């Protein structure tokens, strides 16, 4: 420890912290009412997942030899599927699939599910897009391109809407936790997002960036951050998004 570090350590002793309150009386009554997630089984059976994977692959018309599913990871309503030798995606993006432009207030009123506000501390998104009942997206545009896209969709297992993500073999997939919420980081390879609509049809969503992707399952809503940013920055973006006011019962 050098001199300045020693001084800062001494400064710690010089700071008179306010007395820490006893939190137990306030916390204890809320524990009985708290749902114990570890007792809740994800209702989605593996068989259902297998059927959906097959449906996705059928839609893609990928030859069987190239469809060996090497791995899949679950997160909320999203499933990440790693498929060997997936063809690279064209860079052309059609953002219309993200829905129509809307104000944040309109999105709040019409989305049909809880979602977080745009990240605080960042410049506001250039565009909010809404697909009622399906997703709300924040876009930071750069001309015809987008620097960052944050999309949220209802992702609780058992919901009719499921998102599938196909990842090429070169894509690195890390699963971790953000404040207790499950998160998945995808980096380094092309991937495409397929959406299973409530009517059962599988649609391919082309609006996404080809950059890195962070998926976070927060209280039944999945937050997806995509752009040319690293994992720490993507985590910062999600952390800066306050939980929806209606998500805390």
């Amino acid at each position, binding site marked *: 420890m050098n001199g300045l570090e020693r001084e800062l350590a001494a*400064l*710690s002793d010089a*700071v008179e912290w306010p007395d*820490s*309150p006893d939190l*137990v009386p306030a916390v204890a009554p809320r524990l009985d009412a708290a749902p114990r997630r*570890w007792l809740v089984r994800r209702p989605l059976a593996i068989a259902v997942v297998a059927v959906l994977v097959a449906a996705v692959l059928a839609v893609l018309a990928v030859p069987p030899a190239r469809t060996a599913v090497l791995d899949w990871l679950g997160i909320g309503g999203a499933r990440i599927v790693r498929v060997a030798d997936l063809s690279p995606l064209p860079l052309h993006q059609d953002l219309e699939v993200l829905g129509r432009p809307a104000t944040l207030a309109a999105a709040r009123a019409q989305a049909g599910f809880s979602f977080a506000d745009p990240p605080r501390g960042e410049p506001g998104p250039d565009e909010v897009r809404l697909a009622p009942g399906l997703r709300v997206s924040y876009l930071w545009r750069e001309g015809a391109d987008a620097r960052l896209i944050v999309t949220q969709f209802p992702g609780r297992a058992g919901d009719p809407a499921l998102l599938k993500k196909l990842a090429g073999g070169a894509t690195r997939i890390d699963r971790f936790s953000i404040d*207790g919420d499950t998160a998945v980081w995808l980096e380094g390879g092309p991937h495409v997002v397929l959406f299973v609509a409530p009517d059962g049809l599988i649609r391919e969503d082309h609006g996404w960036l080809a950059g890195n992707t962070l998926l976070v399952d927060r209280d039944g809503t999945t937050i997806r951050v995509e752009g040319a940013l690293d994992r720490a920055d993507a985590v*910062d973006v999600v952390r800066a998004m306050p939980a929806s006011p209606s998500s805390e019962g």
Partner: protein
Amino acid sequence: MGSRPPDEETLVARAKRGETTAYEELVRMHQGIAFRVALVAAGDRGDAEEAAQDAFVKAYRALGRFREGSPFRPWLLRIVANEARNRRRAAGRRAGLTLRAAAVVSGDAAPSPETTALTRERRDALLGGLAALDERDREVLVHRFLLELGEDETAAALGIRRGTVKSRTSRALDRLRAVVGEEVA
């Protein structure tokens, strides 16, 4: 000889099984540091207390996803800090206020041997220097030195990698040194 209090790992395992009394014990063990981390992040005592309370409840709900055997405190502090930051942002407070809120310098309390080496003038200079740093530099130094958290705990509370804590600490110390200099022992 009284019976030894249960260790943290045992308490976590019992809490995961739904024993709320075990979790209450965990709250007692960690509420002091949880409150301070929340205070630094929220910048307001009332918000800090509420954030710490909510964080303990959220952590309880998320306990099923906590990997047994790993240290509980960094995992908890991550949730606490996040909850407190959300409150600060919701209240529209700037992060720069957090240090002032935490840094109530003791006036009459008997100084420890360390503080005797730190004059009031020097303390003020250090606090002023910290306040002048940008938020990222300041928060890493506050967590490492004023809150006395380890690198893993600091990384968890700030949501950054341990390596980033190391590099950011080093850089922040350099910047602080440029502002306040270094007292020669």
